[in-house]
Structures are given as C-alpha cells and as structure tokens.
C-alpha cells in the first residue's frame, strides 16, 4: 500500500536493456536512461557491466540466442557447504581441489556458455567451469580452501543461472557409460569392416587374375583375424539379447541377426583353409551398420530426454525461509524443505512458491492455485486461511505456519502418485511389431526348409544356400529402417517444439480414439485477463495508469490488455490500494477508483443502469466484473476471467473432424467448465469440473476399463493436478508452461504455446508410421526376391555382399529424406513476468 502524494510519471514504453522484452509500465522509471523489465534483469545487467563482461550482449546477437527475463533466487546456498554432503555432491581431484556438477536454470544459448565459463576469471578459487549446453549441467572444479561452494552458487545465481545440485548424476553417469560402450563397439566394427573390405577386394581381384596360393591364403587368414574383434566384441549385444530371448522363449528381432552372424562366421572360418566363399566383410559391415543405427537412435532419445529434463527445472520447492526468533518479522534463515517441522514458521515473499502446506499467520495476499487445482481465479488469503505447497504468492509477503512439508504435502503426495503410475509402465526398448516377429519366423522356417530340401546335395551346398539366404534376408529393415525412421522423426519433432520422450507413443497414437483435455492452462491461458470491456476509452486509459501502481492480478490483466497502448505520460497521485478490494487515486486531476462494486460505491461513485445490467451479464457468464469510477461516476465495467486460447476452438473442431472423441476434465468449478465446454462446441456431458487430481486419474482409469473400448486415450494437461492422469493415460501430453510433475509424467512435451501443436503431433506421428510402413514394405519385397534367388543358388557371395549394403543404404535414405514433423520452427514464446 502506498500512501501519500508521491508523484509518478508514466513513461513511454521501452525495451528492457538486458532481455529486450517490453517493460511493463509499473517498472518504468522516468529519468533513467536504461529501463528493465524486472529487478532480476537490472541486477544481472549491472553485475555483467561491473565485471566487464559486456561482450555477452554482442555474443547473444551473434549466436542468435534469445534472452529471457532473469530471476535470481536470492538464496545463500549454505547447503552446498555442508560437510556431510560433500562426498555425495562432489569428488576430490588431486589434493586441494574438488569437482561437482550443478544443474543450472536459465541456460539457453552460446552466450550463456561464454558467461558461465568466465567464472574462474571472476571468482578466484574456481579453477574451471565447463557447461554442457544441451543438458544445462556445469562441471565446476574449485579449491575449497580458497572459495566456498556456496560462494560459487551465489555468483551463478546472481548472474541469473540458479544452480541446483545435479540429483540425477548417478543415472546420468550410467547413461553416459552405456553410450561410450556403444560408441566403442561401433568404432571397432567400422574400422574392422573397412579393412576387411580391402582384404576381400584383394581376394576378388585375385580370383580374376589368379593370385598365387600363398598370398591368397595370407589374405584369407588375415580376414579371419580381423573379423574376430567384430564378432567377439562389437556383436556381443546381439548374441546376448538373442540368447536371453531364447531362454524366455520369445523370438527377438536380434535372433536372425545373431543366427546369420554365427552361421556365416562359422561357415567362413571353416572355409578359410580351402577355396570356399568368405563372408567376413559382409558380416562386419552388417554389424557396423546395425550398431550405427542404434547409436543414432540412442542419441535422438537422449537429446529428447535431456531437453525434457531441462524443461522440468526444479520440480519442487527445495528451500524455504524459516523464521527464527520471536515475532513475525524475525530473521529468516534458508533451510531445506525436508528439515521443516510442523509448527515452525516460514515466510513466503511476493512472487515465490508456497513451500509447505499450512496456515497463514500474517499477511494478506492472493494465491494462484491453478497448478494444483485448476482453479482459474486467484484465491484471496489472510490470517487463518489454509494454503497448499506449490501455489504462487501473487501479492504481499505472508508468514505461514508449517503443517506438512516435503513429501507429506498434498503436492508431494501427488508426485508420489505419478511415480507409482509410471512404475507400472512396461519398459519397451525397441519398436517390435507383430510383423517383425512373423518375418523372423518366416526366415527361420525358410532356412530350415532349404536345409531339408537340398540335404541330398550335400552339406556344402546346403550351407551355401542357407548362409546366402540368411545374409540376404538379414532384417536390415527391422534393425535399421524402424529405428532410423523413429529417430529422425523424433529429432525433427524436437526442432518443431514437440519433444517425444517415449517413442512407443508414436505407435500408440495410431489407435487414438479419445482425447482428454485439462481446462486451466491448456484450453485457457491460465491467467487472469481482461476478457470484456464496456466503457469509454478515457476511463480505460486512466484506470490502466492507476493500476500500474499495483501488482494485483486484476492490475496485471489491465496492463496486459491496455498497457501496451500507453502513449501519454500521466501524473498519478494519492494512490491508495486496499488489498482484495480495489485501488483509488488521482490521475491527471481526475478521481479514479477501480475495484469491486462495494469499493467504488464506498468511494462515492454511482453505477449507471446499463453498466449495472452489463455487470450482471458478466457475472452470469462466469467473469468477475471490475468497475472503473471516474469523478464519482462509474464510467466502465471490465470482465476479468481466464480467456480461452485463440486456437482452442479451431483445434478441437479439427480433432473432432478426425473422428476423435473429446472430453474435458478440470478441477475448476463445474459451472465455469460447462460454459467453456459450450463455447468449444463440446457435449456438456463430456465436460466434468470440480475434479481432484485423484478423481482425474480415476476418470482415466474408468474410461480405459470400459468394456468394448478400443483405441488409445490421450490426456493433455499442464498442472500438478494432471500429472497422475497423464501418467496413467496411453499417451500423456504436457503443454508449454506445465508444472514439473506433469513434464515428468508425460510421454510428449509440447513447447509451443497453444493447443494447436496437438494437431502437429498427430500428423507427425502418422507420417512417421507411414515411413516405417513404406520401408518395411519395400524391404519385404527386396527380401522376398533375394530369398528366392538365394534358395535357388543363383546368388554368389559377391552378389550377397553387394546387395545387402545397397538395401541398407536405400532404406536409410528413405527414412531420413521423408518429411515427418513439419511444424513451424519457432522458439517457444516468452513473456516478461509482470
């Protein structure tokens, strides 16, 4: 509340000197030559200049990076110095140094890498910092004797890159070890394959020109030797999975590959002393190609996972400010949330997340519960009201008594629900189709038939035919085409802002029948905006100038709608804000009051009948009327509500046109949900409101259990209250701006705003499946022709060796060159946080 006659001059709109986004009028200060959109941007700008790193801004432009408004957390990071955790969070390097890995928020371009890696220069005691751009993990080596890790944390925080201890370090290490092992196998296989091809080429040439025997024998024995690393090292994964499959009586796709490798190798090895054909080069090339495809697949999946991890950010509040000492203004100390006991008091500043479930002891404010419950309207709270962890404090400082913290909070319980639902998901490593299994069985059957049919011609002939058959019909298509098509599709999708964490989702989307949508934040914008306005322009302009002094949700709504049109500087005096009621003052000499009906009438304003009727219709429509009084007369009425997204109606219409059944599951009031459903053209029966997170999950389970239901269920949501349902649905889609828990639970994360990317997801998935089907079809054709030739004995080893890589190459090209995800390649939209 600001009292007194402070004169504020509204200034013309400006761009933030740090992040370049528009500066909200409330933050404009006349007389400053540089404007900033928030305190965070101002702080980072000044720090960068104080340290002499202005080069950062030039780099951002050169690298085409995009800046975002920064939000330093202001924490002191004392927990990083905790001696008991040192072994957990860091390793010793030499005698006097330690190395740790920190996950940094807010890393988005090369300039960030430059700035972060300058830290050793700016902070003595830090030896090196290396930042990985795709995973946002920084490896820091520092000397504990010279600088504390908490100081490093604070420095990073002040630059705008809030660090967190990298909690997934162990899983990260395991993944990295697997990637390295695979890369080694690919390298060995490729090197040996190329050398074997040289040797085999010499042998082919020798056959034509009749090379002398000692040399031929030499080449043949060398071929055997060089092929050993491939068989014994690189090809081991195939033998291992084929054997595991046999023991479990499952026909795995690797079985014919393993069989072909084994039989062809033994046959060739036995032939080495004699004159028979050798297949070493074909084998090595096959192994190299298959492992290479796997490498590409892993890389694509890892990139998508890392990106999804970085989008998640810190899933939950980890630290809180506990009040120590008597009184409500005692000093606050930062402690981990788990260390809080019921009965202790914490303070929640404006703009922060509430860290615990509890009761308000002091302060009046409004909370945004949308992430937890789906309620679109901010909830006013004052002393005695209950609050939940995860809500955003939109207003003033609150002091909260702790009732439950960490995993015992409502949000923590929801997260546990998500983990439980995820643990029931079967782990599928490859896209194995029924078709693949039938193909494998057919090849094996054909090999057996060939063996029997030509048995009378002797072992040599039988072996020759069978080996030629296995080499030609090797399931390159299955080993190469499907993984490649999927990987390339995923990478293209990622570039279009659609991150598919789970490749099985692409296949499940084929059978999609029902789409369940959350309302708040998914179909609607998720924040209060001025949806309706009736009144004169002067009233609007003056009201906006007045509201620029407030950070209330209604003020933000006014700024969002009218604020950008401010052109005239206005003198604002005598501002009085009554939290929860309204704001009054003098603007350009007029007496202006904005707020609830009770507030403006208490200020002495009368409401004309037509505006009164209009307000009543707004109420009936589910909006909150806001009255603007000018010099004692109400001159305008605005409707504040949660606006539908611009693309919601058209997207839903197109989904319906594709034959999908649409339903809405929301935690918001049923009346509001029904109105939204009506506006979207949905059957009111299919829109359910007032659902708790558990009820949403149960609704998904009930739908899935309906008798006679075929087809997959897709759930689209963004908040913590959707996470359990997302995890349970066949395909869970998290929308831009979603809470950490829903990103963890989802199979697909959309990072472009709006609901329209859903359509791109469906069409992209359909195209990927089309590419796979086409590849499979063509390979089957080729395999059939090849099998016939091999069984008839018309294919020699040279022809087999040539046909196989040609087919692999053709399949590879077809996978990579086909268009799959073609959404617009725009970076996600960022708004300054007003």
């Amino acid at each position: 509340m600001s009292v007194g006659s402070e004169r504020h001059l509204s200034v013309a709109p400006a761009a933030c000197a740090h992040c370049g986004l528009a500066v909200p009028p409330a933050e404009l200060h006349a007389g400053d030559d540089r404007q900033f959109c928030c305190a965070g941007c101002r702080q980072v700008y000044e720090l960068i200049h104080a340290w002499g790193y202005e080069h950062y801004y030039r780099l951002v432009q050169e690298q085409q990076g995009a800046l975002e408004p920064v939000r330093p957390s202001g924490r002191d990071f004392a927990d990083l110095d905790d001696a008991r955790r040192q072994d957990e969070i860091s390793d010793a390097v030499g005698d006097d140094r330690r190395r740790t890995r920190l996950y940094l928020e807010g890393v988005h371009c090369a300039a960030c890498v430059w700035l972060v890696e300058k830290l050793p220069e700016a902070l003595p005691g830090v030896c090196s910092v290396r930042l990985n751009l795709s995973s946002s993990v920084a490896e820091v080596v520092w000397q504990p004797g010279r600088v504390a890790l908490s100081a490093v944390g604070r420095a990073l925080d002040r630059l705008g890159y809030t660090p967190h201890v990298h909690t997934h370090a162990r899983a990260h290490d395991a993944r990295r070890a697997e990637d390295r092992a695979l890369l080694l196998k690919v390298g060995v296989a490729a090197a040996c394959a190329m050398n074997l091809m040289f040797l085999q080429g010499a042998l082919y040439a020798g056959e034509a020109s009749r090379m002398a025997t000692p040399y031929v024998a030499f080449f043949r024995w060398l071929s055997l030797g060089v092929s050993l690393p491939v068989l014994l090292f690189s090809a081991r994964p195939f033998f291992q999975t084929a054997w595991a499959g046999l023991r479990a009586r499952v026909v795995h796709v690797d079985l014919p590959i393993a069989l072909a490798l084994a039989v062809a190798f033994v046959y060739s090895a036995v032939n080495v002393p004699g004159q028979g054909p050798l297949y070493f080069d074909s084998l090595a090339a096959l192994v190299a190609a298959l492992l290479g495809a796997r490498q590409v697949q892993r890389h694509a999946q890892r990139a998508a996972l890392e990106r999804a991890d970085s989008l998640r950010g810190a899933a939950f509040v980890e630290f809180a400010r506990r009040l120590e000492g008597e009184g409500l203004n005692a000093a606050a100390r930062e402690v981990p949330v788990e260390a809080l006991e019921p009965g202790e008091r914490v303070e929640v500043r404006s703009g922060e997340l509430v860290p615990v479930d509890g009761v308000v002891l002091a302060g009046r404010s409004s909370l945004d519960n949308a992430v937890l419950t789906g309620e679109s309207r901010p909830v006013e709270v004052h002393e005695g009201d209950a609050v939940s962890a995860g809500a955003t404090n939109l207003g003033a400082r609150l002091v909260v008594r702790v009732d439950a913290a960490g995993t015992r909070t409502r949000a923590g319980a929801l997260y546990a629900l998500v983990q439980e639902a995820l643990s029931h998901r079967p782990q599928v490593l490859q896209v194995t189709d029924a078709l693949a299994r039938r193909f494998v069985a057919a090849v094996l059957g054909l090999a057996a038939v060939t063996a029997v049919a030509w048995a009378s011609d002797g072992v040599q002939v039988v072996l020759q035919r069978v080996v030629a058959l296995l080499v030609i019909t090797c399931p390159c298509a299955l080993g190469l085409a499907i993984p490649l098509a999927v990987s390339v599709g995923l990478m293209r999708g990622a570039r279009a802002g659609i991150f598919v964490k789970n490749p099985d989702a692409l296949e499940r989307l084929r059978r999609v029948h029902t789409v369940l949508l959350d309302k708040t934040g998914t179909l609607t914008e998720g924040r209060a905006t001025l949806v309706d306005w009736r009144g004169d322009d002067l009233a609007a302009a003056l009201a906006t100038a007045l509201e620029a002094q407030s950070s209330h949700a209604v003020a933000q709504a006014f700024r969002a709608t009218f604020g950008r049109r401010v052109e005239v500087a206005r003198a604002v005096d005598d501002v009085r804000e009554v939290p929860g009621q309204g704001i009054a003052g003098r603007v350009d000499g007029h007496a202006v009051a904005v707020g609830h009906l009770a507030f403006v009438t208490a200020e002495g304003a009368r409401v004309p009948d037509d505006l009164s009727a209009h307000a009543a219709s707004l109420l009936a429509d589910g909006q909150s009327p806001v009255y603007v009084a000018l010099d004692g007369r109400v001159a305008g009425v605005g409707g504040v509500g949660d606006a539908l997204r611009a693309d919601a109606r058209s997207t839903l219409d197109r989904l319906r046109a594709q034959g999908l059944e649409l339903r809405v599951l929301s935690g918001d009031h049923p009346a509001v949900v029904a109105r939204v459903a009506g506006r979207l053209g949905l059957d009111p029966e299919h829109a359910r409101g007032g659902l708790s997170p558990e009820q949403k999950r149960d609704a998904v389970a009930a739908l899935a259990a309906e008798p006679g239901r075929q087809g997959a269920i897709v759930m689209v949501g963004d908040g913590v209250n959707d996470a359990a349902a997302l995890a349970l649905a066949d395909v869970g889609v998290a929308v831009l701006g979603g809470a950490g828990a829903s990103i963890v639970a989802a199979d697909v994360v959309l990072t472009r705003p709006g609901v329209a990317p859903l359509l791109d997801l469906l069409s992209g998935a359909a195209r990927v499946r089309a590419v796979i089907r086409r590849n499979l079809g063509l390979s089957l054709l080729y395999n059939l022709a090849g099998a016939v030739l091999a069984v008839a004995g018309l294919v020699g080893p040279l022809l087999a060796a040539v046909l196989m890589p040609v087919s692999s190459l053709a399949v590879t090209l077809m996978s990579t060159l086909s268009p799959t995800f073609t959404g617009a390649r725009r970076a996600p939209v960022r708004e300054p946080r007003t």
Partner: protein
Amino acid sequence: METIFVLLPVALLIAGIALAMFVWAVRTGQYDDLETPAVRMLFDDEPPRETPRDAPGEPTHPSDAAPTRSDHP
C-alpha cells in the same frame, strides 16, 4: 611381392594404433558432448585479466543477494 607379408601386418598395426587412439578418446569423454565445443569455438580469446575490474565479493547477509547499484565494493 613377398613384401606383402610385411606390409599388410604393418598396415594393420597402424590401423590398430588409430583404433587405440579412438578408444582413448572415447574413454576420456571427448565424445560425450558434441554440441557445446562447436559453440565454444566461436568465442574470441581475450588476454586474461590480472584482477577482475571489480572484486565480486559475497553478500554477507542473504537479504543482500539482490544488490542495487551501490552494492559493489
């Protein structure tokens, strides 16, 4: 042409050395991050400064963590 009995093993040995170097590179983590080094190449090298223009200093009290213009020592 008897030299082939020497030349080929030597050639394979050289290939083996190259392979060993590849194995070393993978094991020391040089293939772990292929994106960031590509970006780092574009930075200009500046001569290291003896002292930073402004000693960054720690905020002594957690509430100092949002400095104003007068914060820097």
